């Protein structure tokens, strides 16, 4: 008897909570429509700048908002605060997905989003289009970064490009004697280095396999590695499942990747230029990076402003500050990426920096397939709706790892 009473009380509590939650979330709209064009939320861009607020709340990649606390000589936040009066609170996020989640709390004014987060934020109504005329430094940003699929929608920029990099093929020159020129070294021929192959631990890495298949198996008809039909996705997943047998470990933390190559755990696999630089400066092992003939995937970061930013003027000031030549050069060197600002190349402490990162090499940049969030409405601009979405990629990625 008492047990039954308790049980129904529990049901009542649960029901009450459910009703409350349903009530809360139904108000925040969005609806369940499935077409990109229909569902681009109408968020107005700012017309002109007002007075600076006193605060700015940011979500950033590690190393994007240095205030001297990591290295006293690396500080571009303090001068910004002095100049604008905007006190900066920077929250570091570890992954694109975490950034999306944090932005949805509504507590932040802006974010340094990568291409695999941007569209989710745009179509989630979390960010506003940017009035580029209010950001003077935008004019000298590399043209090949403007109005791209991953940072614009409806013909409008949804942020200011910050920097970019490529996912390269890196190998230990002692263990890998014949220089590879194809991604097949880590896919179809990965058994040569069984147990010593590494790969990037994210569903977005499926695009690397798709890019490889684009050249290797034209009959699949892959045009864009982020716009995969069910059949194309299956083919890419099969490549990765075979690769898994020869993978020693996956990496997502770049310090782990450095350590894996230095210890000999990994001898070949996908990497970022910054990882190769760190290994080279440690000098424990010799590595080389190449751009395989199939091309490469990459990432391009964009500063975006929250749709309901509480401090929009400070955010506009920040977007202009971080893309100014000197600051952009500082960030790019600290983090290890190509600066988006063309004028930054004259400001780097290492004169060869922009060359090693191909910063102003439009042809190099054009060969990079930048991370973007796969959606059912294909992101290749074809307007087709038979593509596979990121959530499906995630499930497939888990199956690949088994």
């Amino acid at each position, binding site marked *: 008897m008492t047990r039954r009473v308790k049980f129904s009380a529990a049901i009542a*509590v649960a029901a009450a*909570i459910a009703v409350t*939650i349903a009530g809360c979330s*139904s108000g925040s709209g969005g609806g369940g429509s499935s077409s990109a064009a229909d569902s681009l939320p109408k968020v107005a861009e700012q017309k002109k700048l007002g007075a600076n607020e006193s605060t700015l709340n940011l979500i950033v990649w590690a190393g994007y908002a240095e205030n001297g606390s990591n290295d006293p000589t690396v500080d571009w936040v303090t001068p910004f605060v002095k100049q604008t009066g905007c006190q900066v609170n920077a929250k570091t996020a570890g992954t694109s997905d975490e950034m999306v989640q944090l932005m949805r709390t509504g507590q932040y004014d802006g974010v340094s989003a990568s291409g695999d987060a941007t569209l989710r934020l745009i179509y989630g109504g979390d960010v506003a289009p940017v009035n580029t005329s209010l950001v003077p430094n935008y004019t000298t940003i590399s043209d090949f970064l403007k109005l791209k699929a991953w940072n614009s929608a409806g013909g409008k920029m949804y942020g200011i490009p910050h920097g970019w990099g490529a996912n390269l093929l890196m190998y230990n020159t002692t263990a890998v004697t014949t220089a590879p020129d194809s991604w097949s070294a880590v896919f179809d021929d990965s058994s040569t280095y069984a147990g010593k192959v590494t790969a990037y631990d994210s569903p977005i890495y499926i695009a690397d396999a798709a890019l490889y298949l684009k050249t290797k198996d034209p009959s699949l008809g892959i045009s864009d590695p982020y716009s995969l039909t069910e059949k194309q996705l299956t083919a890419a997943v099969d490549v990765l499942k075979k690769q898994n047998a020869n993978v*020693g470990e996956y990496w997502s933390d770049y310090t782990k990747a450095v350590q894996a190559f230095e*210890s000999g755990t990994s001898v070949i696999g996908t990497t970022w230029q910054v990882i190769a630089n760190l290994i080279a400066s440690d000098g424990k092992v010799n590595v080389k990076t190449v751009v395989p003939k199939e091309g490469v995937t990459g990432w391009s970061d964009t500063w975006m402003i929250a749709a309901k930013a509480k401090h929009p003027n400070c955010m506009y000031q920040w977007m202009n500050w971080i893309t100014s030549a000197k600051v952009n050069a500082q960030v790019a060197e600290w983090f290890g990426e190509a600066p988006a600002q063309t004028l930054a190349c004259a400001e780097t402490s290492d004169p060869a920096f922009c060359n090693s990162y191909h910063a102003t090499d439009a042809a190099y940049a054009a060969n990079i397939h930048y991370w973007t969030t796969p959606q059912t409405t294909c992101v290749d601009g074809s307007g087709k709706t038979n593509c596979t979405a990121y*959530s499906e990629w*995630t*499930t497939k990625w*888990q199956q690949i790892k088994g």
Partner: protein
Amino acid sequence: MSAYFATRPRTRLGLLLTPPLLWLVVAYLGSIVLLLLTAFWTVNGFTGRAEPAFQFGNLVAVVTDPLYRDVALRTLLVALSVTVIDAVVAFPMAFYMAKIASPRNRAFFLVAVTTPLWASYLAKAYAWRVLFEPNGPIDIVTGGHSPGYGLPATVVTLAYLWLPYMVIPLYAGFDRVPASLLEASADLGASTGRTVRSVVLPLVFPAIAAGSIFTFSLSFGDYIAVTIVGGKTQLLANLIYGQLVTANNQPLAAALSIVPLLAVILYLLAMRRTGALENV
């Protein structure tokens, strides 16, 4: 002030119990109920937002998808292996500390066993990463037969991380067994092995059970050690993390989290059946 409460014991009791009760009901049970509820929700495929609904798709996926089944079994295997290893390693350690070591050495060993708890989890896990690396210490000691990164390294690392949680209850358990019982057993003709089996083990079993609840549930929920020393291995909590953070599929993550929740509840029930929890 104190006189006011002294004359009103009910008021005092109420004030005393309200914060913990609120914590239990709202923060603890509330969050679990929420978790269970979202398992029935759906995700808007486009915006990625979780939306209230009532459907069983997520739970069906968890039960039927061979991936989830395989990973859940692997995780169970890891949790059980870690628990067994910890019990086997902690048993002689705790026995020595409680029954053989001098009081001064006992204090030293207690400190030595608990000190690693003060060190950062990541530091300890990365230390094992170095130990297991190719041509690393374990490779050298075993003459090139180090298992390398993978499931065995994960089990070893987790067993190391959670060992204090087994040693401490077991030490307390041994401490409660009078030395005269061990002497009585020997006196009646039992060899040391027989005494351990017939007298010591049954008496400290509740302590092993208490410790195993920690090692089992901590191992079942861990997803960090495996990313550091597990090579390409993934465990159940990695899938939950991936669904929650990477795929932003909160409902499926919630459905998946029911698995460890059930596993730990079943484990507790199994321990209760053995009568192990009565004296804890």
